[in-house]
């Protein structure tokens, strides 16, 4: 992932292709011609993405297979850098041509506005992946200064920045310490690092999304919500309705549902087949590496299991006390997420297996010994001095509790308070960002995709 000025030309290429594809799709009445235009547009978009993101991955795998069967791969390895945000704006551009093809969206005739739809800066690099129905008409509307938008936008940006620099980047210090030298650590330390990573990635990505939504709202634009308290989910299916919503709905609209419809003769198996394909592609979309594919497959398997067992689980829920069923369901969901994110975070599969083995084996010798001595009488826990670790752990606990309590609230908690408390809250957030934030160039995790 990188920004190079000349990469704007790649963006320009896909913008020009999709802009004209949209007009041609709308103007032609011939279904086969329409399909042809759509395919041309999709090939251009996926081609660019495949070249930059998957060329070397595919090449590496050809080399690996070649070695297995005794032939040498002569396809050259290319030193290419993934343009920043390519996966996001490719999906956004594809949604435009598909919607025009389906007749749900009129083709955009103003080239500047179409370019703005693809390149709208708040969400260019890491989403939310918008739909043309939500965005294009907003670019045509005349915008006027709106105080409510300004304040709610600033509020969202503030909360997003807090989550990023105060929570995510501080947790990153611990996570990087452990995952950077994983075999030095074991037991509960590794489990804590996995838990911290879960909160790191949540605060990092949802923090970015809040900043994107907030900065768009300040200018009077409304982007779709990308997160909705995902850790409160009782199933992985529910989790995907609350996590990275713009991607999961994109995949559902343009991949999962069409496959289910196409294979409807297969019955239940069509759904399972579609889930597996969708999640494998979701894994590949995140990164050109097998650990991401494995991460996607794991989610696919669990989602399929949930689909098959839905009736039985509902029966079980009826005969089990609500609090017990919900609590256990949330615990299992969170445990699965922790395991799956281990594959998301680590490129090495053997390392992932080591982490799972050591983190989930409380009977192992020294499992609970989390204090690390660096031989210079510096006793640390996950790289933090003990008092700082206690503070970070309590901070994460408070954040998790707050996030859980707010799961059914549509408003920011502070909004319900009177003005003096609200302002005190804002000031505490600002001061926390300034004085407790980590500013040592930690980019957003999802920028790499």
């Amino acid at each position, binding site marked *: 992932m990188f920004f190079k000025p000349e990469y704007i030309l790649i963006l320009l290429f896909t913008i020009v292709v999709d802009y004209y594809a949209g007009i041609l799709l709308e103007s032609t009445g011939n279904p086969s011609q329409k399909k042809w235009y759509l395919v041309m547009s999709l090939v251009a978009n996926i081609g660019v993405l495949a070249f930059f993101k998957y060329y070397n991955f595919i090449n590496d795998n050809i080399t690996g297979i070649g070695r297995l069967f005794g032939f040498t791969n002569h396809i050259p390895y290319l030193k290419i850098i993934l343009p920043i945000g390519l996966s996001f704006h490719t999906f956004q551009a594809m949604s435009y041509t598909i919607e025009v093809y389906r007749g749900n969206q009129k083709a955009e005739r103003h080239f500047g506005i179409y370019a703005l739809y693809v390149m709208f800066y708040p969400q260019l690099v890491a989403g939310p992946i918008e739909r043309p129905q939500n965005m294009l008409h907003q670019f045509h509307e005349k915008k006027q*200064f709106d*105080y409510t938008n*300004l*304040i709610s936008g600033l509020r969202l940006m503030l909360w997003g920045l807090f989550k990023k620099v105060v929570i995510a980047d501080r947790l990153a210090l611990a996570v990087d310490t452990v995952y950077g030298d994983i075999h030095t650590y074991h037991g509960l330390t590794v489990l804590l690092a996995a838990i911290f990573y879960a909160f790191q990635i949540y605060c990092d990505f949802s923090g970015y999304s809040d900043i994107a939504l907030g900065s768009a709202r300040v200018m009077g634009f409304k982007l779709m919500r990308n997160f909705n308290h995902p850790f409160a989910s009782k199933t992985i299916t529910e989790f995907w309705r609350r996590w990275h919503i713009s991607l999961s709905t994109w995949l559902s609209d343009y991949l999962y549902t069409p496959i289910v419809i196409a294979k409807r003769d297969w019955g239940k198996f069509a759904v399972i087949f579609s889930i597996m394909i969708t999640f494998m592609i979701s894994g590949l979309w995140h990164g050109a590496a097998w650990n991401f594919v494995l991460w996607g497959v794991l989610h696919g398997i669990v989602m399929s299991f949930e689909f098959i067992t839905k009736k039985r689980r509902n029966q079980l829920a009826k005969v089990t006390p609500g609090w017990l069923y919900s609590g256990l369901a949330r615990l299992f969901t969170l445990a699965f997420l922790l395991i799956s994110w281990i594959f998301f975070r680590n490129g090495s599969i053997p390392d992932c297996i080591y982490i799972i083995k050591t983190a989930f084996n409380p009977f192992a010798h020294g499992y609970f010994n989390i204090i690390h001595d660096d031989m210079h009488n510096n006793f640390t826990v996950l790289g933090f001095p003990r008092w*700082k670790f206690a503070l970070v752990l309590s901070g994460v606990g408070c954040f998790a509790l707050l996030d859980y309590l707010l799961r059914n609230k549509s408003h920011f908690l502070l909004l319900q308070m009177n003005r003096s408390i609200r*302002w005190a809250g*804002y*000031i505490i957030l*600002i*001061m926390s960002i*300034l*004085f407790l*934030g980590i*500013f040592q160039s930690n980019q957003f995790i999802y920028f790499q995709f």
Partner: protein
Amino acid sequence: MIFSQLKSLIFFLLILLVILMAVDTSSNFGVKHDFQNDLGKVNLVMGHRVDPDIMIFGSSNSEVGFDVPLLRRLSGKSVYNAALDGTHFLQMGCLVSEFSDYSSQNKYVILGLSPFSLGPMKKVNRIDQFLAYIDNPYVYKSLSSMDPNLTNRCRFIPFYKYTEVNSDYYKQVMIGWKSYLGSARQKEISDTNYGFTPNFQQWQKDQDAVNAASDRFPIPIDSSVCRYLQGLITTLQAKGKKVILIYPPVQKDGQALITNFDAIGQAIKDLGARADYYFDFSNCSISAKKEFFYNDSHLNARGAKEFSLMLFNQMKGVLN
């Protein structure tokens, strides 16, 4: 209409500004009153609180190498070691300039060099120690000669500096406030080592292995750094101070790793010709003995005693 809506926001921003300014003033005050460790040295010099007969400037090898209590005892003069760990002379220069401006009692300034002193440096070390003085022209000039972007951001963007500091900075603020509010009102030098930081480690066990595994490397000699040091010497001399340039011992194995060690020695010697006195200990008898070092270029407490004794014997003829 818009203004009436914005009134509330403006009022909030004003309150925020007042609070941030109060915190900023308070942290500046606190940090300026911490007289411990390297920050304490910066505060003593920038606060014009130290004016010894002999003042020492340099980096870590000077900080651990010049045994000030011993030099005080032997010479009968007041001595202070203002050398800062990891700090290049391009950065240290602001303290030298400030000191030369205010000091009246001081007669001798020792500039302690190292093989790295003449190399280029673009990274400011521990900017948190200088933030409280960033408006001082010498400090601003020194820091911006190394990293103008960072320096300008810290000086001109309100509250930006807090994004460049870590928890140590706030600890220093607390120490400063405690020191100020304490019954003793610690405003004088309480450091019985007078800036000298003895290191009691022996030659580190793994140092031989590290040296054996290391490739030999050159240290560039930057002509602009040489000119800068010449300028510092001239400035000090213009203020009536005798400048003593000293090249402390460098351990033999460490010397062997530097491909242009002799060329660096020659460049330092050329610089020494501009000073009032120049003493080269880089290759003296101490250099061959590992028991006096804890790594290639840093003397341990025992080595510092030996070196300071040797230094005094050479220097006593010039001190009056």
